[in-house]
């Protein structure tokens, strides 16, 4: 226990000794959380359509879509870049043509929506503001975890780890301390920014502060566990950072934080379910805590497992002298 406390307190002394980078990183964290809150609060998930026609066109209002009136057909790149999901050209007299790069389904839906304006359009509710924000935050906090457990990789290289691990508290105590100090920094900054967003800027952040505290705890826990694990496996700090951020990025995108990769391939879906990020997303989008209990358990168990594995591997590497 004393080993844990010593390393924990010392970490903060080390952070105080290099205020520049720490402040910068916390600043970025704050900025990203703010951006996420800002982006996420806007939950409109309607499709965007460019309408080429007159202002009194019959199609100026298509239910379920944001329609922008334009003078001429926008360039193809606008559709590639996502500014518009489809272009509708009003040919007059109720004739129209739909052009889209996306799937046939979208084309069909649009046609139906135009021809029968009374039918409720693509009213997909989309995620709530809170779920949106947390979705963006997954990656941010994962990356921050990698940053703040950097002291660990440093200690590996400098031999300080060997010294601490030979004390009675062992490598496990050391790792917990590293995890704890990272956790405190990341959690407090992220939480403070959410509070500021809610109270100072009066943004609708979706969930209550208590819920945010809970979700952020889960997220930070996962992030810290993951980065400790990566740092234990990789040797040098840069390897850990490069590998860790690449894996974090790829898995977070695949898990659908930003874009739903709804594929019709069940094997892939099953594989993706393993990702904790997917469980987290299910958890925040689910209305009922009881329903999402298995996800919650997974999200608590996975970090614990990762930390245990890290301790195991760290010990082994020390003994074999890696």
């Amino acid at each position, binding site marked *: 226990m004393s080993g844990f406390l010593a390393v924990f307190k010392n970490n903060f002394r080390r952070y105080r000794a290099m205020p520049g980078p720490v402040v910068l990183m916390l600043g970025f964290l704050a900025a990203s959380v703010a951006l996420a809150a800002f982006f996420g609060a806007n939950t409109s998930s309607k499709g965007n359509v460019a309408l080429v026609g007159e202002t009194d066109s019959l199609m100026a209002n298509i239910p379920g879509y944001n329609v922008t009136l334009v003078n001429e057909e926008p*360039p193809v790149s606008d559709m590639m870049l*996502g500014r518009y999901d489809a272009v509708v050209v009003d040919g007059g007299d109720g004739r129209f043509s739909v052009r889209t790069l996306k799937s046939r389904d979208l084309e069909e839906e649009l046609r139906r929506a135009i021809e029968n304006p009374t039918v409720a359009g693509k009213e997909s509710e989309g995620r709530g503001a809170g779920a949106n924000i947390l979705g963006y935050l997954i990656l941010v906090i994962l990356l921050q975890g990698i940053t703040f457990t950097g002291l660990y990789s440093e200690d590996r290289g400098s031999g300080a780890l060997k010294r601490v691990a030979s004390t009675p508290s062992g490598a496990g105590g050391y790792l917990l301390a590293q995890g704890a100090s990272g956790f405190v920094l990341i959690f407090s900054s992220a939480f403070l920014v959410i509070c500021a967003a809610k109270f100072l800027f009066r943004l609708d952040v979706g969930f209550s502060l208590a819920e945010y505290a809970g979700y952020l705890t889960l997220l930070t826990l996962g992030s810290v566990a993951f980065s400790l694990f990566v740092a234990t496996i990789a040797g040098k700090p840069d390897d850990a950072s490069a590998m860790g951020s690449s894996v974090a990025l790829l898995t977070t995108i695949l898990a659908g934080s930003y874009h739903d990769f709804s594929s019709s391939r069940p094997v892939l879906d099953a594989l993706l379910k393993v990702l904790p990020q997917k469980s987290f997303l299910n958890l925040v989008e689910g209305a009922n805590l009881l329903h999402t209990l298995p996800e919650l358990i997974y999200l608590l168990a996975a970090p614990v497992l990762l930390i245990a594995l890290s301790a195991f591997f760290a010990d082994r590497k020390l003994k074999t002298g890696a």
Partner: protein
Amino acid sequence: MLRFMTLVKRDIGNLLSSPVLFLYNTLLPILMTLILGFLGNGDYSGSGVNAYDYYGISIMVFMLLNVSVTAANTFMEHTLKKANLRVIHAPIPRSWTYLSKIASTSLFTGTCFLLMMALNAFALGVDYGGRMVGYVIALMLAFNLMSAALGVLFCCIFKSEEVANKILSFITAVMAIFGGMFFQLDGFGPAAALISRLSPARWVLDGMFHIVYDGSLSDFLPALLSLLGLTALCVLGSKRFFRTEDYV
């Protein structure tokens, strides 16, 4: 010039000998393009354009951002740091110390990306502009250079490769997400569109898409000149922040 090339050759040798860096610049982009393209294809109809086309370009732009991390590594990775001291004391201009790192990183990563473009074009059918591919390549190389210069600049400012690395990885990932590399952000409204316009990665992405899909060069010159301008700023910044005593 010959002496400068000696430095550059040595640096490239160092880059090649680090397996992680090498894989990071070759395997990772290919893997990401394959996976994201494969999954994203559900969104696209087969009208000639598909997810591979989108990711073929956007992943490349994302990896170009990451060139800064590679550059930081070439410059100050702790096994290499002391060697810089010997270079400083050689009878060559001091600025060659960091200029050679920018040059070697750009040469190395530039080649990796050209290879990647070729692979994407032939294996995945990614459209890089046909006859206009020269302009796309020019933008790619300019951004490549700028990223390398940025990486070296951050190293000079933060004096430590680990710190620069962490900051750069973080900025890169955030710029990528909010810059719309992985999924199109314009659909989120004008505020989102504005924020994503702030990043040079966005200019390059837009420029490349305009060239390939609209045949329009209107973005090309402004983007190219801005990138070269930013590169010059980074080099000047490096000159200002570079201090020989940091290597002792």
